[in-house]
C-alpha cells in the first residue's frame, strides 16, 4: 500500500473576487518510507495539497488517500495517520513551551506519562530545556518555529507532512531537523516535504514533483528530472589569467547564467555540448584554461528552466 495516493485532484476556490484553480488535476503516489518533495513557486498549489491531505479542506474533485484512508470519506482515520507542520507558525502563544509539547501529544491521544517521557527526549534534541517554563508569546519567531517542528517528534505517526517547515530556522537547527527526518524515513516513516529551498529538497528527497499553477510540471528522482533537462549543463572553468574582454567573449556563447569570480567562471548552458566545447576551445587559444568541469544541472536550474518554459 502506498502512503499517499493522489488521483486527478482538483481544487477550486471561489470568492467574491473570482475563481482560483489552486489544483488542476494533480496525480501521484508516494510509497511508504519515502521522502517525497513538492516544489513550486508561490501559488503553485503545494499548501493546498497539504491542506487537502491533512483534511483541513476538501478537494473539488478527484481522490486522495493516506495509507488507504480516503481523506474526504474517512477524515478522522486519515488524521490518525499523520502529523503536519503547516506553512504558517502555529503555537499556543499563551501557554508555556512545556504545555505546547504535552498538549500536542494529548490531543493526539497520548497519555500523560508517555507524553512526559517523549517530551524529555524532544526537549533535549531541540535544545528547549531552558525554555520549558517560558510562555511561547515571549519567544522569537525562529524559536516558535522550532517548537512547532519539535512537536511532531512527540509522536510516531507513519506520515509526516512538512510545509516549508524549516523556514526561519537557524542553519544548525535546520541541519538537525533534516538529519532527523532522514533517520525517521530509514525507520519506515513517510515524509512529504514542500519547500522553496531547493538545495534542501535536492539533499533530502528521493522523489520530487515540481508544481506550477496547480499542475504537475515534472516528477521523478533527481536523476530523472535531470534527464528531462537534457542539453542543459553547468560548466566550471578556471582561466590562466583574467584577460580583458574575456567576459564579453563568454557572453557571446549565450549562457543562461554566467558568474565570474576573478579567473574562475561558472556558466549554465542550454544547447549542444559539442558546439559549446568547440567555442570554448577557440577562447582557450587566447586565454588558456587550466581547469575544466562539466556537470548536470542542479535542481534549482531544472526548476527555473521548467518554470520559465511554462511561462
Amino acid at each position: 500500500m502506498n502512503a499517499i495516493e493522489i488521483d486527478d485532484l482538483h481544487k477550486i476556490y471561489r470568492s467574491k473576487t473570482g475563481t482560483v484553480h489552486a489544483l488542476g488535476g494533480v496525480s501521484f503516489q508516494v510509497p511508504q518510507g519515502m521522502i517525497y518533495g513538492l516544489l513550486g513557486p508561490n501559488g503553485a498549489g503545494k499548501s493546498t495539497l497539504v491542506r487537502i491531505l491533512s483534511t483541513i479542506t476538501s478537494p473539488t474533485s478527484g481522490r486522495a488517500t493516506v495509507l488507504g484512508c480516503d481523506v474526504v470519506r474517512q477524515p478522522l482515520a486519515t488524521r490518525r495517520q499523520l502529523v503536519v507542520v503547516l506553512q504558517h507558525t502555529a503555537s499556543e502563544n499563551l501557554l508555556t513551551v512545556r504545555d505546547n509539547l504535552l498538549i500536542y501529544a494529548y490531543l493526539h491521544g497520548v497519555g500523560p506519562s508517555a507524553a512526559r517521557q517523549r517530551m524529555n527526549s524532544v526537549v533535549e534534541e531541540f535544545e528547549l530545556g531552558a525554555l520549558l517554563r517560558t510562555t511561547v508569546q515571549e519567544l522569537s519567531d525562529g524559536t516558535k518555529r522550532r517548537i512547532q517542528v519539535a512537536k511532531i517528534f512527540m509522536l510516531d505517526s507513519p506520515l509526516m507532512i512538512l510545509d516549508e517547515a524549516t523556514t526561519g530556522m537557524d542553519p544548525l537547527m535546520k541541519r538537525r531537523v533534516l538529519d532527523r527526518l532522514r533517520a525517521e524515513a530509514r525507520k519506515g516513516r513517510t515524509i512529504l516535504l514542500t519547500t522553496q529551498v531547493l538545495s534542501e529538497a535536492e539533499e533530502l528527497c528521493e522523489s520530487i514533483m515540481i508544481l506550477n499553477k496547480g499542475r504537475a510540471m515534472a516528477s521523478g528522482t533527481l536523476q530523472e528530472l535531470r534527464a528531462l533537462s537534457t542539453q542543459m549543463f553547468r560548466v566550471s572553468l578556471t582561466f590562466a589569467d583574467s584577460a580583458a574582454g574575456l567576459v564579453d567573449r563568454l557572453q557571446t556563447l549565450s549562457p543562461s547564467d554566467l558568474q565570474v569570480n576573478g579567473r574562475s567562471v561558472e556558466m549554465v548552458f542550454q544547447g549542444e555540448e559539442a558546439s559549446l566545447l568547440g567555442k570554448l576551445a577557440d577562447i582557450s587559444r587566447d586565454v588558456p584554461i587550466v581547469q575544466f568541469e562539466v556537470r548536470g544541472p542542479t535542481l534549482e536550474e531544472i526548476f527555473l528552466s521548467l518554470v520559465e518554459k511554462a511561462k
Partner: protein
Amino acid sequence: MNAITAVFYRDYRQRITNAGFLLWYLLVPLAYLLLFGLGFALLLGGELTVAVQHIGYTAFLLPGILAMVTFTVALNTSWGFFMDKDSGIFYELLTFPITRQQLLIGKIGFNVLVSVIGSLLAIAVAVFAMGVEIRFDLLPVTALAVVGTTAGWFFLFGIFAIRLNRMDSFNTLTSAAYILLMFLSTMFYPLDGLPAWFRAASLLNPMTWQVDLLRFSLLGTGDPSVLVMEAVAFTIFSAICLALAVHALNRVA
C-alpha cells in the same frame, strides 16, 4: 488521552493564564444582580406576577442573570477561535485526530464549569444577601439548564467565529445579537402588557426559552406544558447550531 478531555485540558490551561478574566466572568453577573436587582426593585416598589405567582423583582431577575452568565461565557469561548486563528493553531487543530464535534464539545467543557460556578455565585448572593427564596430541590435542574444552554449559545456563536475572518465583524454581530436577544425576551420584564408583535418575537427567542426554564428551576414558576416545549425547542436549537458549527469547521478553506 481522550480527545474531549485533551481539548478540555487545553482550554483550562489557557484560561488559567488569565485569572483576571475569569474573575471578570464571575463578577459581572453579580454586579448586574446587585445594581439592577436593587435599583429596579426600588423603582418598581412591589412584586411582579409571573404565571399567577407573585415574586419580587430580584427573584424575577435572578434567572436572567444566570442566562447572562451562560451567554457571556459562551460568547467569550467562541471568541477564542479568533485567538487560535491569530496564533495559527486553529488550522493545526483541524489536522489532529479528533472529530469536529469533539473539538467543539471539549472547548466548551471547561467553560461550562465557569458558567456553573458563576451561576452558583449569583444564586448564593441572591439567596444569602438579597433574601431571594429559591427551589433548592430543583438545583440539579438549574445546573443542567446552565450546562446545556451555555453549550447551545457557544455552538451558535461558534458558527460565526469560525466563518468570519474579521474580529470586528464578529464583535458587531454579537453585540447586536446580545442586545436583541436580551431585551426581546423575558429576562428583564414579563411579557404581559407588551405589544403583540413584541410578545410573538419574544416567544421565538431562545433566550426566552432559556430564562423561562431557569425561572422554573429556580422559582418554580411557569406552565409545565410550555416549559417542556421550550426545553425541547432549546435542545433542537442547540443541536442545529452544533451541526452548523461542525459544517463550518469542515468548510474552512
